C-alpha cells in the first residue's frame, strides 16, 4: 500500500469538495490507472472528468505532471516515478493551457 499525493485543478477540487492536495492509499503497483481508479472510487463525482466514461482514456485537455515531467502520453499501466510512489512528489492533474474550448463549438448555436 502506497500513500500517494494528488494535486487536482481548481474546478475538480470544488466538485469533490477537497483542498489542493488529496492523499490516497493505492494498492499494488503505482500507475496512472491505479491512481485514477482509486481516486474515482473515493470521489465518484470525478468519474468522467479526467478520463472519458467507458474508454477511460485521458480527456484531451487534461495533462498529468509529476517530477517536472509531462507523463500525459505515458501508458496508463507504466510505473510512476519513485518519488511519486514514496509520496515525496505529488501526481498532478492539470487542465491543459490550450483547453476549455472546442474547435467545433462556436459561441452561438
Amino acid at each position, binding site marked *: 500500500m502506497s500513500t500517494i499525493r494528488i494535486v487536482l485543478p481548481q474546478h*475538480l477540487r470544488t*466538485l469533490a469538495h477537497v483542498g489542493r492536495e488529496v492523499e490516497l492509499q493505492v494498492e499494488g503497483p503505482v500507475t496512472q490507472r491505479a491512481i485514477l481508479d482509486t481516486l474515482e472510487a473515493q470521489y465518484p463525482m470525478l468519474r468522467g*472528468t479526467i478520463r472519458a*466514461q*467507458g474508454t477511460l482514456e485521458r480527456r484531451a*485537455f*487534461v495533462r498529468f505532471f509529476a517530477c517536472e515531467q509531462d507523463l500525459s502520453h505515458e501508458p496508463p499501466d507504466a510505473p510512476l516515478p519513485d518519488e511519486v510512489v514514496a509520496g515525496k512528489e505529488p501526481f498532478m492533474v492539470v487542465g491543459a493551457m490550450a*483547453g476549455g*474550448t472546442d474547435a467545433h463549438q462556436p459561441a*452561438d448555436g
Partner: protein
Amino acid sequence: MSKVRVLVGTRKGAFILTSDEKRQEWDISGPHFAGWEIYHLKGSPADPDRIYASQSTGWFGQLIQRSNDGAQTWEPAGNTFDYDGTPGTHQWYDGTQHPWEFKRVWHLEPSLTDANTVYAGAEDAALFRSTDAGQTWQELSGLRDVKSKLWQPGAGGMCLHTIILDPNDPKRIFVAISAAGAFRTDDGGETWRPINQGLKSPFELPDPTAEVGHCVHNLSMHPSRPDVLFMQKHWDVMRSDNAGEMWHEVSGNLPSDFGFPIQVHAHEPDTVYVVPIKSDSEHFPPDGKLRVYRSRTGGNEWEALTNGLPQSDCYVNVLRDAMAIDQLDSCGVYFGTTGGQVYASADSGDNWTAIMRDLPAVVSVEVQTLP
C-alpha cells in the same frame, strides 16, 4: 403572494434570480458552478424545488447537477451518457460520414408529473431519459433510426436542443435537432418520425424540402393547445396546427425571419414572441436595435417591442434556450443575451428592464412560477 425564480445559465456559471409577483426587485445568487458552462437549468413542474442543471467544460466534460432545495445546494448526479448499441455515423461538416460522439447536454426537460423523471437532449444528437433523478441515463435510440446518417451539425454542433412533452398525452414527445429537423413520438419514445413537411431550406439543403436535415432552432407550444406548434427555423418562423404534420410560414412582416428562440404567452395561445437576428452570418439584431417581436394573431402580423431595450449600437445575440415565460396573471417574459444582460418584462413584453447585466454570455433562461 406568488414569486418567480429565474434560472440563468451562462458560459461561466449559473445565476438564480428571485422576485415577488411585482418583479421589480431581484435577489441574485451565484455564480453557481463558477467557471463552468451551464447550458441549461430547469425545474421540475412536479416539484419546483427539484432543479436539474447541465454543467460542462472543454477540459473536464459533462456533469449533471441536481438540487432538491430550489437551487440553494447542489449534488452531482450521473454523467454516463452511452449511446445504445453501435452508435454509427452521421454527416460531417465536409459531407463525409463521422462517428457519433457524445459531447454535452444542451437541454434538460423534467417530466410534467414525476420529479425523478427527466429527459436530456445531447450533442451528438440523441435523447436520453432518466427515471431515477438523473443518476442513470438510457438513450431512446429509436430516434436515431430516422435517417440519422443524413443528420449533420449546425454551426453550434449537432445538438438535440428542444424537448416538448405533450401535457394531454404522456406518450407524445416533440424534439428538435440542428441540423436534422423536428421529430415526434406517439409511443413514449420507442419509435419516432420526422415532422418536417412544409419546411423549406433552399440555402442549407440541396433538396429544400427534404424529409430530414433542416436546421430547426427552437419549438414552442401552449399547453392548452398541444397540436399547435410554433417553430423558429434557421430562416423562417413556422406554425403547425396538426402536431407537426404540416408547417406553414408565419414570418409575415418580421424585419428578419432568422433567429433562435420562440415562446408562447402563458395565457394567450396565439401570442408568440421571437427575437429577429440579422442573418446566419451576422448573429446580431438588424440595425443594431434589440427588438422582441410579438404576434397576437398566431403569426404573420408582428409588432416590435422596444420599450427599455437598446435601440442603437446593440450587437448581441439571443440563443435558442435563452427566452422564457412565467405563469403569473400579468405574464412575464424573460431573455438573456450573449452580451450578458438578462431582460425581463412583467407586462407581456410592453416594457423591459435589465434585471442583470455584465454576466458572461447567457446560454439559457428558464423561469419557475412559485406559490
